[in-house]
C-alpha cells in the first residue's frame, strides 16, 4: 500500500520558503495515502498561479492547464474515467476571478471531484495584485490606494448555488486540512475546499498570525451541525466567513455521474469504440 511518501516526487517546489502551499501539498499527499489510493489512481488538475504548480509536485497523474480552467478539465477527465480520484486545485484568482463561472457551474453540475482553492487573498505569481478575495481597502500593486471592490465570500456563495460539500481550512493546521481533503474526496459529488494559504511575500495582512487570531474552528463546536444549511450560512455570516472545518455536507444529493441516464459503471475510457453493425444500421435508418 502506498504511503504519503509515494506521492512525493523529486521536483523541488519553486514556492517561496514559508508559502502556505507547501502544507496543502503535504496534506493532499497524506490524504491520498490515508484513503488507500495508489499514485496511478489519482489525477491532480491545476490552474495557473503559484498554487497551480502543485500538480507537478505530486507523484500522481495530473494536468497543469490554463489560467482559470482547472475545473472543466477535471470534470472532463472524471467523466472519461470515473475510476480515477480527480482533484482540481488552484489559486483564488484562478477559481474566483477568471474561473468563477466554472466554479459556480461545477457546483451546480456536481461531478464527483474535489476542488481545493489555495486562497492567499492576492495574486502571487504575477507579483502581488489584488484578488477577488482581497478585502476592501487591501493595498496592492494594482490597488495602491486600497481595493474599492468588495471581496467574494466563497463559502456563502457555494451554499447559495447548492453545493453538497463545503469546507475550509488553513495551512497551519495540517491535521484538519488533511481531514477535510479526505472527507472531500470521499464525498460523492463536487466538494469545495477553500484553504487559507498565506502568501508570505505579497500579503502582509493575512498572515499566519492573523489567521491564528481570527479563525474559528468548527471542529471545537459540539453544537455545530454540518448537515444544517441555514446554520452553516449563519455561522459564516457571524464570523465573516472566517471559520474552518466541514461547514456543510449534503449526503443525499446524487452526483452528476449517478444522474446521467445510461452512464455506465465501467469508465468511458475503457469501453470499446467500435459501434456494432446492427446499431449503426438502426441509426442510419432514421435518416431514410
Amino acid at each position, binding site marked *: 500500500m502506498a504511503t504519503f511518501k509515494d506521492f*512525493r*516526487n*523529486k*521536483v523541488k517546489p519553486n514556492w517561496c520558503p514559508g508559502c502556505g502551499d507547501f502544507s496543502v501539498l503535504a496534506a493532499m499527499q497524506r490524504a491520498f495515502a490515508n484513503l488507500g489510493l*495508489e*499514485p*496511478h*489512481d489519482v*489525477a491532480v488538475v491545476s490552474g*495557473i498561479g503559484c498554487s497551480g504548480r502543485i*500538480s*507537478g509536485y505530486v*507523484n*500522481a*497523474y*495530473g*494536468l*497543469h*492547464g*490554463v489560467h482559470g*480552467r482547472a*475545473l*472543466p*478539465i*477535471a*470534470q*472532463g*477527465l*472524471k*467523466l*472519461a*474515467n470515473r*475510476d*480515477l480520484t480527480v482533484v482540481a486545485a488552484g489559486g483564488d484568482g484562478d477559481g474566483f476571478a477568471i474561473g468563477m*463561472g*466554472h466554479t*459556480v*457551474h461545477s457546483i451546480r453540475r456536481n461531478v464527483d471531484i474535489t476542488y481545493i482553492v489555495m486562497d492567499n487573498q492576492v495574486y502571487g505569481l504575477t507579483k502581488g495584485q489584488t484578488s477577488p478575495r482581497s478585502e476592501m481597502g487591501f493595498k496592492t500593486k494594482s490597488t495602491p490606494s486600497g481595493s474599492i471592490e468588495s471581496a467574494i465570500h466563497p463559502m456563502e456563495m457555494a451554499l447559495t448555488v447548492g453545493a453538497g460539500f463545503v469546507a475550509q481550512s488553513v495551512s497551519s493546521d495540517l491535521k484538519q486540512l488533511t481531514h477535510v481533503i479526505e472527507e472531500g474526496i470521499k464525498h460523492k459529488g463536487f466538494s469545495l475546499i477553500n484553504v487559507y494559504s498565506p502568501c508570505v511575500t505579497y500579503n502582509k495582512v493575512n498572515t499566519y498570525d492573523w489567521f491564528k487570531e481570527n479563525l474559528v474552528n468548527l471542529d471545537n463546536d459540539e453544537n455545530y451541525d454540518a448537515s444544517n444549511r441555514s446554520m452553516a450560512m449563519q455561522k459564516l455570516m457571524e464570523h465573516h466567513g472566517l471559520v474552518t472545518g466541514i461547514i456543510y455536507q449534503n449526503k443525499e444529493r446524487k452526483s452528476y455521474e449517478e444522474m*446521467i*441516464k*445510461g*452512464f*455506465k459503471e*465501467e*469508465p*468511458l*475510457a*475503457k*469501453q*470499446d*469504440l*467500435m*459501434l456494432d*453493425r446492427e446499431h*449503426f*444500421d438502426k*441509426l*442510419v435508418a432514421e*435518416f*431514410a
Partner: protein
Amino acid sequence: MVKQLSWKVGGQQGEGIDSAGETLSTALNRKGYYLYGYRHFSSRIKGGHSNTKIRISTSPVRSISDELDILVAFDQETIDLNAHELIADGVILADAKFNPTVPEGVTAHLLAVPFTKIAEEVGMAQMKNMVAVGASIALLGLSVDAFKEVIEERFARKGQKVVDKNMEAITKGHEYVQEQIGNTITKFRLDPSDGKKRLYMIGNDAIALGAVAAGARLMAAYPITPSSEIMEYLIKKLPELGGTVVQTEDEIAAMTMVIGANYGGVRALTASAGPGLSLMTEAIGLAGMTETPAVIVNTQRGGPSTGLPTKQEQSDVLAMLYSTHGEIPKIVLAPSTVEECFYDTIQAFNLAEQYQCPVIILSDLALSLGKQTVNPLDYDRIEIKRGKLVDWNEELPPLENSQLFPRYEFTEDGISRRVLPGKKDGLHHVTGVEHDETGRPSENPLNRKRMMDKRLSKLSNGIDFDTPVFLDAQHDEADLLIVGFNSTRGTITEAKERLEAEGLKVNHAHIRQILPFPTEIMQQQIQKAKKVLVVENNATGQLTNLIKMHVGFAEKLVHYGKYDGNPFLPSEIYKQCKELLVHGHI
C-alpha cells in the same frame, strides 16, 4: 415531364413551413429522387419571413438552383420577396385567404388555393401546410400514396386520427389543384426516379453520426447556430452507448472539458461557430502544447461578432489556422458534402489520436444545415486508429524511485507513446508550460527547441487523410481552374458543367484538408491552368491568400467573394468564370 425542378415554400416563421418542406422532401427522397434543400431563416423563433427551397432531381444535385419553378406562399410577403425568382411560366400556389396578387413584371401563373379553408374543413387550420403539400404534388404529377408512410411516421405519436386528418388534408389539396388544372399545366410532372434507397440528412446530422461511429462518447458544448443540431443529436444517442453530452457554461468550459476527457482517454468533441471558436482559442493551444487529441467542429456563419448568425459565410479559415497564440501542430479538415461530413469526422477522431493534436472540422452553414440526398453510408469504411496509445492491457516496465514515463519522448516521427491516467507505471506530467520528455517544466533552450521541433514535425510529412483535395480535373491544359472549399462544391460543379458544355476546358479543385496545406497538389493544378478563380464566401479572400502564401502564382489567382449572407448560385459562378476568361479579370 422534367428531370429536375425547384420548389419553394414561404411564410412567417412558425407557420409550418419547415414541416411542409420536410414532408415533401422526405417522401420524394424515399421514392428515389435526389434532393437539395436550403432554409432561409432569421434568428427569430416566430414571425419574420422564412422559406425553404428544395431542388428535386432524377440525378445527384448538390446546390440550390438559380431558378424557381413552383412557389408556395402562405402570405403576400412571400410572393413579393420571391416571385422574381420564378421562371416565366412558373406557378405560384398561394392561400386564397389573403387574396394573393402577382407583382408587376412577374409572368408566372397564380393559382389561389384555399389552403386554410380546406384545412379548416378537414379539422384544423394548422394543417394548411399539408394542403399545400398536396397541391404541390398535383403539379408534380405524383400520387398522394407516396406520403402515407411519411405522414404515419411523423404523426404516429399523436394518434391515428391525426395521421388520417393530415392525409386527408394532403388528398384534398391534391384534388383541388388537379381539378383546377386538369391537363393544362403538365410541364412540372417529374420523370420517374430510379427508386433507389438513399438517406436524407443535413451536414450536422452526418457529423454527429460520424462522431458516434468514430467512438466518441462525450461531447461538451454550448448552444449556437448553426451547430446545435450536433449536440441535440448526440444527447439523444450517446446515453444508449453509455456516454453523454454536457451543456457547459460557455465554450471555454466546453473546450477544456474536451481536453480533460481526451486526456482521460475517451474520444470527446465540441462543436460551435465563430463566436465560440474565438473563446476556445487559448484552450486549443493547450491541446497542441500538451499533445492531447481533441476534435472541434466549427460550423461557420456570418461574422464578425454576431454578424449574420443564420446566414452563410466562409470567413473563419485564417482564424482556424492562426488564432491560437504561439505555434502548435493542428489539423483543419473541410468536408464538402454531407457524405464527407460523416467520413471526415471519423477520420478527424483518428487523426487527433494518431498525431496527438487538435483537429478542427470546418464546415459552413449551407453544408451544416442544407439537407441533401446522401448515398448509403458504408459501415465497412469505419476504421478506428488510435495511434501510439498504450493499451490498457499492456504491461509497462515498473517506474522506480519517482521515475516518470517518457510521455513526450523524442522519436523519429515526433510522435510519442501516450499513456492514459489510471495506468500503472505510466505516471508523467502534463503541462502547458514548456516541458521535457517526462512532461516536467523546463526552460532549457536546447530542450525548448527540440520540443518545438518534435511537436511541429508530427505533421510535416503529410498526414493520413484520404483526400486532401477533391479533384474534378481532366484537363492537362485547362483554360480555367475553379477552387473552393466546403459547401460550394456542387455549385462549382454545376458552373463547370455549363462552361464545359460550351467547349471550355475547366478543372475543379475543392480543398478538403486546409492544414497541413496540400501545397503540392495545388501547385500541380494551378500550373495546369491558364487562369484560376478562387470562390469563397468571404470578403478578403482568405483561401486565395492562403494559396498565394503556400503555392505562389499571385498573378494568376483571382478571388471571387460573396458575403451578403447567401450561398453562391451556379449562374453567379458561371458568369464570373466567363468574365475572367473573356476579360482577364472580374
